[in-house]
């Protein structure tokens, strides 16, 4: 179970980082969302994995670690606020700059002929 949990955390982080490296705001926001899933799961994992042990007194024999849960709970809510702020900022940037590139302008790059062909095709 631990192996697959760790694998999923790593995969989510990798996917998140890849999307964060893209150039359009909305995709970056999606990447950050994936990344915050990974971070929350990672933080949660610092309390280790426990089955049937919710930290409610008298409900189970062995309790899971409640401290990471409390931390992650607020992290989820703050994470939502951050995502919201970013996405509104992205909209505002689109409204004011006229494009949705993370730099506020589409960088001028020397375009290779093959890429032009692809676009035209």
């Amino acid at each position, binding site marked *: 179970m*631990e192996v697959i949990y760790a694998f999923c955390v790593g*995969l989510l982080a990798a996917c998140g980082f890849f999307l964060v490296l893209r150039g359009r705001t909305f995709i970056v926001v999606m990447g950050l969302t994936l990344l915050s899933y990974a971070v929350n799961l990672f933080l949660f994992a610092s309390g280790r994995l426990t089955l049937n042990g919710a930290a409610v007194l008298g409900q189970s024999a062995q309790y899971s670690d409640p401290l990471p849960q409390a931390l992650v709970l607020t992290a989820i809510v703050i994470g939502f606020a951050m995502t*919201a702020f970013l996405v509104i900022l992205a909209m505002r940037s689109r409204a004011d700059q006229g494009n949705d590139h*993370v730099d506020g302008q589409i960088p001028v790059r020397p375009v290779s002929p093959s890429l032009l062909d692809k676009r035209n095709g």
Partner: protein
Amino acid sequence: MNLLWVVLLPLIGTLVPLFTERFGRNICAFCVALLPAWSLILVLMYAPDIFNGQAIRQTIEWIPAIGLEVSFRLDGLSLLFLLLILGIGLLVILYARYYLSLKDSMSRFYVYLMLFMAAMVGIVTSNNLIQLWMFWELTSISSFLLISFWSHKSEARKGARMALTVTGAGGLALLAGLLLIGRIVGSYDLDTVLASSDIIHAHAAYPVALILVLLGAFTKSAQFPFHFWLPHAMAAPTPVSAYLHSATMVKAGIFLMARFYPVLAGTDLWFIIVSLTGLTTLLLGAYIALFKHDLKGLLAYSTISHLGLITLLLGLNSPLAAVAAIFHIINHATFKASLFMAAGIIDHESGSRDMRQLNGLWQYMPYTATLAIVAALAMAGVPLLNGFLSKEMFFAETLNQSVLGSLSWTIPLLAVIGAAFSVAYSLRFIHDVFFNGQPVDLPKTPQEPPRYVRIPVEILVALCLLVGIFPAFVVGDLLHIASFAVLDHTVPVHNLAIWHGLNLPLLMSFMAMVGGVILYYNRRHLFEFQSHFDTTDAKHIFERTIQSLVKAAESITNTLENGSLQRYVFTLLLCTLVMGGLPLIELTQNSGTRASIPLDGVTIVCALLMIFSAVATVIWHRRRFLALIFLSVVGLIVSLTFAKFSAPDLALTQLSVEIVTIILLLLALFFLPQSSLKESSNRRLSVDLLVAGLIGCVIGTLCYAMLTTPLNTMSDFFIANSKTGGGGTNVVNVILVDFRGFDTLGEIIVLGIAALGIFKLIANMRIAIPARDDKGRAWSNDPHPMMLEVVSQSLLPLALLVSAYIFLRGHNMPGGGFIAGLITSVAIIQQYIAHGVQWIKPRVTIDYQWIIASGILIATATGLGSWLFGQAFLSTWFDYFSLPWIGKFELASAMLFDLGVYLTVVGAVMLILANLGKLTTSERLDIQENN
């Protein structure tokens, strides 16, 4: 009496000129002089104790735990320097009163001067290394201000910048050196450091500390190769040159070497570095001084040369040489300050400092000329003047050294050559300026200056004579106690007398005199010889170096900061990968001893679904709607994961946040392009994929290592005290609202601020409303489906009931303010979706900002309420009550706090989503009207 006041009085004195300037220049100068004079009197009152061999200390503790304190001490060396700083400082105040023209701002000058004086007094009385360094830096800054006093002149600005750069850089080296010494000794207390000579000498870091401290001293005291800033500092007004660049500031470096003489000197390394640097500086300064046509330029290089002489003496590692060095500090300060003042008078009265124009001034100002000639003779080392005595001691010491092994005999020879040049430039000063024909094209006809401006010069010249004729009587005791402090309480026998009999040093003096006269007589040949050299101005080299440094810094900055966020993120990730990945390579085992949980079928299916969705989000990220759907699947499985691993609170929170987030992103997507073109090259994509993948591996490995390591947690405390201390059985909720309530308060405030920020961003948004999607299809005009309206409306009370239930049971069962708030928000948002803003508007009249505000207020007030009962902020209270029909129930102050959390969450989420939603509806309306 209070030692602190010795420093504080000049510091307070910086304010005096500002208040007294309006009363006229005389009163202003008089009032400015009062405080340092008072300070000087305080010092003199301490003097008897010091002469008895005591050292006076005063310490004010600041942060005792880390050894930070304000600490002063007064011993013989400090006393000597205080007399120089305050005594000559007073004379300079008087001199500057007449020197400054009506165009110059007198108060500004005095403010800088007093700041400098306070800093110097601070250096010589500090008993703490860090404090000493702070005053040291203050002298650099105040000297920058003084040099650039005539800031309209380009050379003043350039000179000031150069002085600040060189001495400031030296100051940084000094700080490093002092920190190192503090580290070696284990204390920044100067008394402790001075008593730890053996520890410092034996320590491996001694050479580093020594070189760093010497860098500070050499830059400040204009030693080769850092001497070049001093001549350019002569752009300052002459009182500044007289004070800073001859008598005091440049002596700060000498002071530093003398102060640390007991702990740093005595080794071969000190010997080699200090004596050779001093010798080079001595010769170089003396040689160049002869060729300077500018009066102040000559004096500047002469100062460099004399500073080199003192450094050389300190470097000889002999107690007698140290005594000679201290003696020369006194003598040089007196004759050089008076020479600068005389040069200033000549400049003032004749309008020129160029020795090719200044000739034959004897006829115009015989009185000033007499004073200047006596001082210049002292500089040359003529008998019956103070310069002769210390030079004699210097010659004697050069004979008693073995710096260069069997070549050591060259040092006395070089000393005589240096002294001969010193005689030659002194002769030039006398002969060229006061005799040698008639003035050439002077802007003014020279005349004697006002009576009072000569007083400081007279006093200093009188001192030169007195010390020269009655040395033991005038300075014997002072020299003794200063040496007492430098040499760690063992002063060698020295005899301050004019006549020591016919001996080798006397012969050397005689040779220097004769050599100097010969050199000066043949100066035309020397000038001719010197003119063959291409002399580059240090200013140009310095400016060029600075500019190339700035250019290099600019190009580095421009390379790193090219305005591309993608580049920044990539660099950041790469650094993270290197710093996070490298330690993992050294780790040989990545799993711990904790028993793992067996896999089951449902988990595998969920995990596969999550993996598929995450990968699909990446693959189809340019088709944004599709990617968003996959993203929401990932979020749902995350909340299932929490549920699976015993975190019901987290599962509920994640689920409701997931809904809100996806609605938010859908709304945003309405305004943003629904798809994007392929922009990155394949190479870029593969590199990004590689880096992201590697970081994923690092994180996964870390996560696995952590998961398999046995748990060592502090949570047992929370579990044990949750019911008894917090009155609730749901430990997660009790942590949130009780144990760590302060954190939660901070978090809901952040949430509120974020929501308000978003509100402001939305309020001024001028975004175009898309009429069609990216495939060119018009958006549906069908407003609100009937079925959805009916179902939502009937669901609302139910949803609110659920959220109330979740809220109330939160303290004991999974739930609480955060989750209940999110559920309420989702229920209200559903109404927005089903009915539209127009329908909601008349029904919900309260502004969401107010809900956020009242939520934060309630939470804060709950925290403050505990003060009423004499408890700490956010202490909680709970008790059990029973009512008929209902039965036993619990009331806790934490529930009130949770209510604050609930309201803030509802307010924040609704403020964000409802306002974003309104943007779309107003657009729709416009479109319909247009149609």
